[in-house]
């Protein structure tokens, strides 16, 4: 590696980092844990979910660790009362936005949103549930898309575009009306571009994308395979 070595502090401890790394990458290499939801090792970070927000000394607002580059002498705090409050509220907002009925979900017990709520001690929400009426796309022969469980993290969008090269998934509309959509707002099963590889399913942190025929608790995702594939591709390149 020819990248310049720099030193930063994370929660007071000195951590070696390289120029061009993000705070999240440097933290992970230094053995520090910053919670994330939309991040997946091997695909481009987007700073979408706001779970990985950290405080950087000298900057008033919190920054997303996954997209903020390290700088020499930077001092980062990963866990403060303010950040914990931010993270809890973010999870609560995700829980009330759609219909996350853990008890009847294919991903119950293996869901990153559910685990995040547990880790942050979220035992209820402070907002009114939205209970939107959302569709389930069963048109694909092998997989299911359930909008009720989607948190719009875009891992599927990125993994399909960046690793499979198919770019079937996109986000459609804006704000609370944003939906994941196949091709140009079509049914997944009608997509000419979809190779049926299932990378999107494995990358999905919740039960939004799953394999057909899976019952409650049966959908265990293998997103480490996505990261391993990305690493092999990187090494080949």
């Amino acid at each position, binding site marked *: 590696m020819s990248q310049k070595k720099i030193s930063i502090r994370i929660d007071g401890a000195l951590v070696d980092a390289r120029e061009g790394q993000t705070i999240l990458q440097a933290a992970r290499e230094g053995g520090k844990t910053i919670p994330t939801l939309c991040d997946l090792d091997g695909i481009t970070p987007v700073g979408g979910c706001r779970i990985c927000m950290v405080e950087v000394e000298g900057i008033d607002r919190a920054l997303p660790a996954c997209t903020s580059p390290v700088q020499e002498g930077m001092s980062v705090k990963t866990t403060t009362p303010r950040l914990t409050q931010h993270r809890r509220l973010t999870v609560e907002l995700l829980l009330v936005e759609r219909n996350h009925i853990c008890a009847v979900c294919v991903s119950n017990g293996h*869901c990153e949103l559910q685990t995040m709520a*547990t880790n942050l001690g979220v035992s209820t929400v402070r907002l*009114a549930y939205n209970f939107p009426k959302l569709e389930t796309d069963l048109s694909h022969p092998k997989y299911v898309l359930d909008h009720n469980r989607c948190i719009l993290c875009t891992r599927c969008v990125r993994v399909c575009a960046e690793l499979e090269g198919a770019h079937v998934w996109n986000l459609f509309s804006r704000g609370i009306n944003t939906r994941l959509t196949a091709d140009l707002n079509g049914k997944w099963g009608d997509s000419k571009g979809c190779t049926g590889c299932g990378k999107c399913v494995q990358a999905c942190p919740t039960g939004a994308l799953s394999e057909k025929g899976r019952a409650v608790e049966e959908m265990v995702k293998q997103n480490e395979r996505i990261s391993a594939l990305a690493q092999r591709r990187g090494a080949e390149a």
Partner: protein
Amino acid sequence: MKKLKVATVWLDGCSGCHMSLLDMDAAVISLASKIELVYGPLVDAQDFPEGVDVTLVEGAVSSQDDLNKIQKIRQRTAILVSMGDCAVTGNVPAMRNGIPVQRLLQRVYVEGAIEGKGVPTDGVPALLKQARPVREFVKVDLCLPGCPPPAKTISGVIAAVLDGRKPDTNLTVKFG
């Protein structure tokens, strides 16, 4: 020693949380001498009594009857606990929330019925527009998510109140 007055309530839920409550095995024996179960599906009392120390509520608020009950219960209870996902989030009962009530009843009791077709009206309370968590109607003091919450979590809350401690709100809890 004055016994702790405990009540349990079954709103729109499957009774699984009450099963979990009973699943505390031997712990129920040590609790039995210290608590008095004053209301709930496990006892005979017809009307919700005054001066209850702890009420464990299972189920979402789904009908006009649920709503009347929970308001009365709140007035007469010191510590109100939402027990389980239905009480905390709406959970499975809330899966009907995207369907208009009349359409729902029509589908289940008319289109879905083999005999005796017709929406029941006698002796059943009117459904509210949506099934919603208890917290959205009355103040809740503690939430125990889970479908159902583990027996130990439930007995732990009662034990804490008995010891004069505030129930730990940083319990390890899990939805689903």
